């Protein structure tokens, strides 16, 4: 009944899959970026779960690294998004396929 490593890993996997489905299914670029944030958060939970399991706080240090990566990703992603919107008046990724054609 005790909550062990497996419980947290299952939760992290489920969150990662939800985020992945969000990236694949949604066509609004803002919500796709938020889904990526959810996937990063799932990896954070896995890091912290292993950190507790092995009794080593190094995992928590890497959660902090992941925070910085997530902040950089959000800043750059949203910057690109604003620029795309300024030129194309849309954030729907289905309409952004100039490189594909």
């Amino acid at each position, binding site marked *: 009944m005790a909550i062990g490593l497996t419980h947290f890993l299952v939760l992290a996997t489920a969150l990662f899959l*939800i985020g992945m489905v969000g990236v694949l299914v949604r066509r609004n670029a803002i919500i796709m970026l*938020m889904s990526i944030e959810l996937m990063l958060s799932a990896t*954070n939970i896995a890091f*912290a*779960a292993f950190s*507790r399991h092995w009794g080593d*706080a190094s995992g*928590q240090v890497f959660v902090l690294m992941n925070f910085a990566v997530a902040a950089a990703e*959000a800043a750059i992603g949203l*910057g690109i998004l604003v620029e795309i919107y300024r030129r194309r008046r849309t954030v729907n990724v289905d309409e952004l396929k100039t490189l594909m054609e």
Partner: protein
Amino acid sequence: MWDVILFYFCGSLMLLAGIMMVASRSAVAAACWLIFGFLNAAGIFALLAAPFVAILQVLVYAGAIMVLFLFVIMMLQGPILSAERRPVPGWTWPAVLLPVGVVGAAVAAWFVSAPGTGANAHLPPGFGSAQQVGLLLLNRYLLAFELISIVLLVAIIGALALGLVERRLPWR
């Protein structure tokens, strides 16, 4: 016992928040669900004997990053937002009580799963404190810490360059 209850409370609400975030039609609703999910993640971190990470989760993720998202949503989809309906009346009390409950659960998780007690009996006291994590960050992982600061610096410069008007960029 309490850690089991708190794990299933925060975990199930976080899964719900993720699903609602992916499924919601409005970007603002998605952002609010994601903030709610990040509050639950703070509770999960508190259960994992990581109180410092839990606080930073609320400050950095639910605070700074999601505010950035909401700013961009307001900038890009302002006209769409103003056309949205008023909030559904039946959702007012859940919208107030659920976050309060989750923050309460996170604080409770902090006390329930302190290092050295209960499910975390194998951990030394002070595990996951700001002091321990900070010492690791500035001793064993000093190089990684410096490198991540370069990542952030590049992100700042990139965001500035993206935001500048084209003709004012020096290389164009």
